[in-house]
């Protein structure tokens, strides 16, 4: 049995970030194996409640990644999602949840490198925070 590793749930939009993650793969760009991807059509599909649910389920971190502003395959899904993400981000902070549990990023289909970097960065941050306790059931 392997010793406990932080687990990061990543919601990736199908058109940009998921493709970016694939590109990281075809480029064989290595990154930490802590991330677990859930494919969604658009970052706009992600309801902040889902993110809360991840934290409640004991996710060490959550990453939501979509197309860069303006690139949304669905025109403005990421713009409208971004408003919700602002609210959630600020709410969690005010509520006293450690900064760095929940991350957001824009990764395009051409950014395999960036995806890998994001995952590295998120993993390091989350690892530094240690096992989550707040909100965990």
């Amino acid at each position, binding site marked *: 049995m392997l010793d406990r590793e932080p687990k990061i749930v990543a919601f990736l939009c199908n058109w940009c970030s998921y493709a970016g993650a694939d590109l990281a793969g075809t480029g064989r760009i290595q990154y930490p194996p802590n991330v677990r991807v859930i494919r969604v059509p658009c970052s706009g599909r992600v309801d902040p*409640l889902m993110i809360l649910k991840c934290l*409640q389920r004991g996710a060490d971190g959550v990453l939501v990644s979509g197309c860069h*502003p303006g690139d949304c395959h669905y025109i403005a899904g990421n713009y409208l999602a971004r408003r919700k993400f602002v*609210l959630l981000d*600020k709410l969690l902070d005010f*509520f*006293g949840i450690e900064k760095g549990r929940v991350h957001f990023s824009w990764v395009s289909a051409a950014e395999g490198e960036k995806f890998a970097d994001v995952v590295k960065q998120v993993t390091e941050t989350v690892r530094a925070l240690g096992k989550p306790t707040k909100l965990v059931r």
Partner: protein
Amino acid sequence: MNKMTGSAMGEDTRGAIQEGIRNSAARMLESGEIDVFIGYEDGTLPLRTTPVFITRPEDAERLVWGPMCENNLTCYLPKFQGTVGVVVKGCDVRTLVNLILENQISRDKVKIVGVPCTGIIDRDRVGKALGTDRIINNAKVIERSLMLEGDGFEVEMEIRDVLASSCEVCRYPVPVVYDVLIGDESMAKDGKDPEAGYLEVEQFAELQPDARFSFFAQEIEGCIQCYACRQACPLCYCLECFADRQSPKWISRWRGLSDKMLFHLGRVLHVAGRCVDCGACRRACPVGIDLRLLTKNMEKVVKDSFEYESGLDIGGLPLLATYRREDPDDFIL
């Protein structure tokens, strides 16, 4: 829009307003403009008034006005059948504006009787001021003070010392929209400047995250999930609250802290950009959870991030129905 000014700041302006409300209710009912008039009547307990639904002009006499008229009556309006008149304070009308924006009631079906608000009394504060377990048998409002008598005591306190916390920082005491405005705007306590309202929030934000979290943990621990906060909120009109969904199960049957927190976080997210800080949730909570702190902070976030204030623009769009390219992006990797 006609304005009825109470008999010019005379002996008892409240009495005048009360008269004004009764008259316009009676008039509207007689003229058939409305089927029902929703206002306040005396309650069964000291310091309490209670919502009343008047359908006959003669019953308009039951209507009262005063700093004990705490309920936000717009919570009865979503999808209201027929035409309705309603008494609203500065905050109440903003929730009404949201209900109109959100297609819960059409403007032409509601006659808005606005009253410039001087703030309402927080019963818990009175209780605290009085000391635990004192029984108040009777409470009267005279001018700017509150007369209390109970088991062997008579106390007078300044109303402004026992105002609801939301009223203390109220920025829009005068209804922004109305059909009838009763009383003189100058009678309303002057709106606080924006920042004053966020002092509490800002001070709290100064604390360490852990301190903030354990504060909320303590507060929310006591939640019995009676959902009075939700039911009292005019904007919580979902037919089935996310907290009640069987599938997906956002909130488990375990009434543990985690699930209670999820409910309250979810609630705050759902009223974000809509909440007008009327304080109804806070007053409804039987265990006295400080629900305003989260919503007030959210109000600030919305204002700072999107320059958006809820319930002021009857022609506007809901916060989450739109976006701007220049919305905050710095938190995104």
